[in-house]
């Protein structure tokens, strides 16, 4: 078994900035015990979120993007999960060392979560309004029931739920998918969190409803000033929403850059492949495809996990694991990131002829 020293290397390359970031994940490692062996779901992940920033975390299923985010709020079930190492600093406070009571305080108040499936987050046998009221009263001492109810109506109106006075009295199953997602967003922003973690918030929604919810997330972010971690597999959503993008592959961060640079000039071959394989609504270009499949997370390939699928791979990639390194205002975990600087990345992966 191998372990990476990504975070330490990255820190060495990029000295601490003056201010402490709002959230800083450092060298986080999470395993899951399964019948087949130990799954290295998150393997030395480090990234930071600054105040008010929208960070898009992209990757395919099993890349560790959700597990990383769930770890922030201590939502990994242990067992089967084991958080093996690393730190999660919120305003400099290590949440891994925080008491259960302290974590409860932070959840909702400091950090709030928006899930893919609202039905997993909403209580099906409790009126929607009551759930928002509960969230409000948990974090505000002395808030009267009537005041909390008024605030719940106000919140639902803010997130665009029509007839909020009537809707607060309904149960989640009486809401459509898009409306449930709105109700969950209302709950998430109820206590004015500084950080929102949205895990595939629009994946289950139809495209016109997705557009509504993304618009709402933008508004919510603008009005509350909350930083947002937006976890998604949809590069279109990232391009429209994020300030910065963290690309994950096989439990590691492979690239971290501002959104414009990442799309214009990716500096990791996996990012190149990902961008090339996405069909675009505004173009007929044919798709490049990344050969093979993501690796078995129980037995990761030696060296760079992406090497079996990488057109740039050579001996060094099979033996030496690349660390996430600062390469001038952005980070890449590729030995040969320099070769992508000037390269015609469009033709890195085989493109089917039309």
């Amino acid at each position, binding site marked *: 078994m191998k372990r990476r020293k990504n975070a330490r290397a990255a820190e060495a390359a990029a000295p601490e900035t003056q201010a402490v970031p709002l959230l800083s994940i450092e060298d986080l490692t999470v395993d899951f015990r399964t019948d087949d062996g130990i799954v290295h779901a998150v393997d030395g992940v480090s990234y930071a979120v600054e105040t008010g920033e929208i960070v898009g975390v992209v990757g*395919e*299923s099993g890349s560790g993007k959700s597990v990383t985010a769930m770890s922030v709020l201590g939502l990994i079930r242990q067992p089967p999960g084991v958080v093996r190492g690393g730190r999660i600093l919120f305003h400099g406070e290590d949440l891994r060392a925080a008491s259960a009571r302290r974590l409860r305080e932070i959840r909702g108040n400091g950090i709030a979560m928006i899930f893919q499936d609202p039905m997993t987050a909403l209580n099906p046998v409790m009126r929607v309004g009551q759930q928002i009221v509960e969230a409000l009263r948990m974090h505000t001492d002395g808030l009267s029931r009537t005041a909390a109810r008024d605030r719940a109506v106000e919140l639902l109106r803010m997130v*665009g739920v*029509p*007839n909020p006075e009537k809707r607060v009295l309904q149960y989640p199953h009486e809401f*459509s998918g*898009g*409306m449930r997602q709105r109700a969950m967003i209302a709950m998430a922003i109820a206590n004015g969190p500084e950080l929102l973690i949205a895990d595939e918030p629009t994946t289950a929604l*139809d*495209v*016109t*409803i*997705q*557009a*509504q919810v*993304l*618009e709402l997330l933008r508004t919510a972010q603008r009005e509350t000033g909350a930083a947002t971690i937006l976890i998604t*597999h*949809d*590069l*279109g*959503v*990232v*391009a*429209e929403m*994020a300030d910065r993008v963290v690309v994950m592959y096989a439990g590691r961060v492979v690239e971290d850059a501002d*959104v*414009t640079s990442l*799309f*214009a000039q990716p500096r990791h071959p996996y990012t190149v*492949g*990902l*961008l*090339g*394989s*996405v*069909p*675009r*609504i*505004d*173009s*007929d270009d*044919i*798709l*490049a*495809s*990344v*050969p093979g*499949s*993501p690796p078995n997370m129980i037995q990761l390939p030696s060296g760079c996990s992406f090497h079996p699928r990488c057109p740039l791979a050579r001996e060094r990639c099979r033996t030496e694991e690349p660390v996430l390194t600062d390469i001038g205002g952005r980070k890449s975990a590729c030995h040969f990131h320099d070769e992508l600087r000037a390269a015609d990345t469009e033709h890195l992966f085989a493109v*089917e002829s039309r």
Partner: protein
Amino acid sequence: MTEALTPPGPAAAAPELLRVEALTKHFPVRGGILNRGRVVVHAVDGVDFSVYEGETLSLVGESGCGKTTTGRMIVRLLHPTSGRVLYRGENLAALPSRKLRRIRGDLQLMFQDPHSSLSPRMSVHDIVAEPLRVQGRYRDGGPARVRELLDLVGLARHYENRYAHEFSGGQRQRIGLARALALDPRMLVLDEPVSALDVSIRAQVVNQLRALQRQLGLAFVFISHDLSIVRHVSTRVAVMYLGAIVEIGTRDQIFQSSRHPYTRALLSAVPVPDPTLRDARDRITLGGDVPDPANPPSGCRFRTRCWKAQDICATERPDLRTQPDGHAFACHFPESATFGAVSDTMITTGQQEGR
């Protein structure tokens, strides 16, 4: 409302393989308090289109628009409430079962979910061989045919003795594809074939499907909610809303000069993976939800979410009118043909509750 639609266009040079006429499917459901009173969901409500040999016709729309139900009626997994499905001029509903069985081989369906559509108790070989056995064609060179099919979809031959659960999503879709191809179909109905797959795998399967289509001269009915994928695979596109086709045309007609407001809204809602276009694109945000198909709006079904709706839209259901160039749309107030003319500013339609 249901006059037969024969769109010419580039694909019209090829012979017509399938024609759907006034196809309708109503599902009775129980509704209301204590399940009293019967409600009828108009899942598909008078749909007409043709599919030509070797082309890809995509059916797109949001959930509940009737695209999957239409696909299932084509392959006879569902019996239409009314209307006809003609395969090479023969009405499938009126065929004696012997003849239908022969035609079934020509029309195959591939399912969306690679995890639930393959039996966990059967080896890959048996899964792919099953249609051959059912049709009594296995005894004659079956094993060789199975290996040929695995080659065709890019799966190694030694996989044939393994079980479906040992494979990744992309590989399972290839197994499903091999099975769908076993009887040498002329046409495949693909129901969201790549929606459950990861991005990098999705591109592999899409490319594979296109290669096979060229190689075997297959026609595809491609059912998808993902307009970006649809743009990549389609010859022609039919846009559905609440059980009806609102617009149908060639790929370019739909993606470059669509005329129906719903199509425009749908296209503008798709996020583009290019951050430099973030503020440059016209954006139409539709308010509200898709109305309840058990109780659709009067007149034009899209009117409750449409920014152009007038009185006539509530009283008169617009016909799907075919233009001289084969492009057809059902709207009293269609958009002009030049793209981008819809909105210099962002349009946000009213927050009406689905009525």
